[in-house]
């Protein structure tokens, strides 16, 4: 099982098309690192992206430097995954 300890899901609210394209650029800047759970679509919709722990500082610095407002939707992905697996095991028992 892949481990996602420390990975976070950031919710970014892009104000306009320019900011959306900055987020699309991120996929090219960090190939196979940033995992868009909700991809950059339109300014009225949030963008959710899972960022590996090792990339968090870079990505947050990138967002800040481009004035992209974000919140932390999931603080540690692995914590939720562990809960999910425990719930499944309990149900199976």
């Amino acid at each position, binding site marked *: *099982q*892949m481990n*996602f300890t420390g990975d976070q*899901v950031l*919710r970014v609210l892009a104000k306009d098309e320019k900011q959306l394209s900055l987020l699309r650029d991120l996929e090219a800047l960090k*190939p*196979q690192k940033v*995992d*868009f*759970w*909700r*991809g*950059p*679509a*339109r300014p009225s*919709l*949030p963008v*959710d992206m*899972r960022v590996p722990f090792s990339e968090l500082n870079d990505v947050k610095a990138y967002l800040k430097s481009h004035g992209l407002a974000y919140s932390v*939707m*999931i603080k540690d*992905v692995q914590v*939720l*995954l562990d*809960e*999910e697996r425990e*719930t*499944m095991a309990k*149900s*199976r028992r």
Partner: protein
Amino acid sequence: LERSTASFSYSSYHTLEEIYSWIDNFVTEHSDIVSKIDIGKSFENRSILVLKFSTGGSQRPAIWIDTGIHSREWITHATGIWTAMKIVSAYGKDHVLTDILKAMDIFIELVTNPDGFAFTHSMNRLWRKNKSSRPGIFCIGVDLNRNWKIGFGGNGSNKNPCSETYRGPSPQSEPEVAAIVDFITGHGNIKALISIHSYSQMLMYPYGHSLAPVSNQEELYNLAKDAVDALYKVHGMEYIFGSISNTLYVASGITVDWAYDNGIKYAFSFELRDTGRYGFLLPASQIIPTAQEMWIAIQVIMTHTLNHPY
């Protein structure tokens, strides 16, 4: 593995083996109305199974529902299983559903991407694509919802095999897609197709590959509005609705566009919960409420299909 569906927990997530075992028990216990059809093999040679709900007749107009084309969207398989159980328990009691099944068949493909789904349990919970691999291609997997022969290769799909929206080397190159195409075109009388995804709480209709409105856009808009309004009444969950390209983003090679352009006038795509707290990791406690509200919306679409034969 469970010996019957009675002890199966519909408010939990399950592995592929548990789901396939449930399917066998379910079909055995409800053989008067349900049968299992094996429509093909996945890339890693797993069976691709479809449940058929029928009260008789042959080649009846039918409704197609698929869940799990993106394997990490676990809520979709779980709501699909609950829906299958709901159909057999409501038939003969719920007059809306009974009327539908007296005139139409319903097909449900619960695990549209079995290889990817197995992989989410064994190695990578957040895997989205299938597991196909080809000589000379460094990355694994194709996004099965970009591999259909409609607008293939257009905007909103990626030619980079390492991308999460990699469309594949050619339309219908993936066995999981080709199996559905063969089944639906072979059946020839599917009147509505509903493809279930998560997340972001949307109900959408074609097109995804183009901003141009479909010919019955107004009808689909009103039908989606009715379905979303009915869904809201169950647990107060707000869904937005509209055409895929206008509501979400441009996406090419997708299921509902292929269905629509192959004569299925009522083609819809659901994006189920959540609103933005858990994403793909929606807790199992939300399986049943999500399924309950989805069921009401699906009934609206099925009833409209029944009442508007074409």
